[in-house]
């Protein structure tokens, strides 16, 4: 799976798991903030901590990648691109 494919798969997962009805996965921006205040209005998704838990679980289920707790998770969850980077790094064969 190349980077673009992976990002699209993550967007589809976001829409499905967080029940973002009516949102087109392909229209989600790679770099927009996913969480926090002003999200939806500010072009992001406006997700919250309960979404983060659901997302972490479904990433683990789908890609076999564990999301660490705390600050590290915050950084991974800042955008679709950051999640995709974390997934591909975690899945890369170790040298």
């Amino acid at each position: 799976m190349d980077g673009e494919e992976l990002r699209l798969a993550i967007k589809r997962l976001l829409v499905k798991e967080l029940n973002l009805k009516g949102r087109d996965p392909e229209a989600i921006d790679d770099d927009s903030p996913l969480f926090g205040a002003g999200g939806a209005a500010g072009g992001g998704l406006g997700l919250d901590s309960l979404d983060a838990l659901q997302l972490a679980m479904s990433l683990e289920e789908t890609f076999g990648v564990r999301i660490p707790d705390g600050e590290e998770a915050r950084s991974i969850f800042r955008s679709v691109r950051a999640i995709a980077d974390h997934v591909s790094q975690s899945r890369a064969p170790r040298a």
Partner: protein
Amino acid sequence: MTGLGLVTPLGVGVDATWNGLVRGERAIAPITLFDASGQRVSLGAQVGELPAVTAKSAGATRTVVSRTSVMAVVAAEEAIRMAKLDMRARRVGLVVATTTGGMLETERLLAAMHADAGLRRLHAEMRCHPITATADLLEEKLGPFVRARTIASACSSGANALLVAAAWLRAGEVDAVLAGGADSLCRLTLTGFNALGAIDPGPCRPFDRDRKGTTLGEGAGFVVLEGPERARARKATPVAVLAGWAAGSEAHHITNPEPGGSLAAGLMARALDRAGLSAADLDYVNAHGTGTLHNDAMEASALARALGPEVARVAVSSSKGQIGHTLGAAGAIEAAITALVVARATLVPTAGLETPDPALRLVHVPRVGRRVPRVRAALSNAFGFGGMDTVLAFSEVREDGPPRALPSTARAGVADPPRLDIPVITGAATFGPEGLFGVAACATALDAGGPRGTPVDADAYLDPDRARRFDRAARVATVAAAHALAEAGVEAGDCGIALGTAFGAVEASAAFLHRAFEKGPRLAAPAAFPNLVPSAPVGHASIYLGAHGPSLATADLGASGESAFFHALDLVRAGESDRFVAGAIDLASDIVDRALGPLFCEGAVRRRDEAGVVVVESERAARARGARILARVARSFEWRGGDVDAARAVGAPGGDGAEVILVRATPAAAAFVARTAWAHAPRHTCAPRLGEVDVAGEAHGAKTLAVAAARVGAGHARESLFVAHWPDRGYAVVLVAV
């Protein structure tokens, strides 16, 4: 409060629990009740050995008694023993709070049923599944009770049981109440709270800088409450005085507390005010104090707001570091502990608190209990999922005359009975596959052909972003509640919501458990878990509508909606809330249709996603806003066991234009009506599906009530006797045109 009984992880009985609390003991260890391996955290606060409690068998099938019910019976017996209460000499009511009910016993079966449709047949284990099973067992063991109610508002359930009891006593409807809560540990809650990352890897440490979550516990707490005059007249020995109370909804988020704690602060102030107390009179607060980052921060902030400068003096502790978070029982167990703190002038500690979080400026009671000269008054806080918060205020017993309690009488003079509000119905709505019906359509429900609706999916009425966490139950509940409020012409504002649900989120619980068993608890769905508590639809509706009143779920099998309506009547009469949306929801469920329904309710029913609700309001509030009043609720009657007294009390219709509306046209219901002065009034049974003849689900009573009220409002009847008659329980009201 003249009696109390406790079953907690620290021990069976009040003294075992109290001694453990004061010594700072912590009953937290790896859970052995079920296989907890594979869970992120497998620690819990488990109750030790319990006596065997059996129930009458139902026909040929053995009745399984849930662990929740066993703990409830043991605690309730202790409370009645301490109060020396003679159940037959007095009108005693029963309020039971629980959230897990018989889940521990049925969860493997539910998970299996989800995977295999062939298994969806009757099982003896299912007998203890409905959360009403505990109330029914208490009735069997300790009754008779003149009324019994089962309520759930997640982690504030137990505190709400005491609040309901206070409302009944204040309205003079009973002489005494046995009120409390019970919840056993189970896989469902352990898995769910783990999925939410809400469990501390070690024993929980409320208010600590390093706190990482709560620890789940189990137990039961019951108390006997009675009015001060009657308690004194029978020379009972009061433990403490339940002097004030307040409940409301944050309407903020399904799992996260509102960070500033403004609603919780308002409730603490109201509970104190009701008790005729100020923060200066307060010596102790038993905090909700779960040990999660967010709860403890919110609660400290709410305490600072509510107590002002007194927060620097009033001792605060949480019992959860010792007994864990006992969920639906917590509010009742901790209320009993708070009453003991007042009675015994001894503060109980926050065990596990080693390094107080400097951001939470509270006066702690570290490690062990501490004797103090006096505890004049104390608060007990209970906050639940969906933002359903309840605060109780206790004060010490004063020998010199009436306690400062019972504020309504305090103002009016103790000899006068409190002035009660009169409930009226100002709105009604039903929602289901036939469409959304308001008052006008409900008024034509008995006409040939019935109302014509357009089937519309709930999505058409809901904002998809704000409703994205809704399950089917929350969707029908919210659409119906919003429409009823619109029909009543009023904003949600301070409205409370009470919805009956006979079996709770059965299908969703089965799916959640099946997934956890199949894929392992780590892959349980965090977002699904909050929807599994019985009060989740109410919580979602309150958040969506911005309804800040006291909200909860009720259950009474086939009459669950009626019990919710009666809950609203009680709280409006007692002045706890000016306005309620009350009714019931049904959900399409193969498990309920095939396994649970036939055991407890009707035979062959295909339940569907539907809801029926009315808006109940105090006549005073309705008139003040110039509302259209459909009907006044002139009289109400509920019974357990025999219906003879209720039939006698119904009274005669005032004149012409009376009708009888039956929820179920059974021979027993007809016999009931025949014994009243309404025997010759025209009698109707509402076609269960408003236009479609079929057997009804458990929301049918609430839908029928909407029809009865709408008919009086439309002038089809001047007066209406509404009867919901089940073999062993029933509800009736007289609705009158105004």
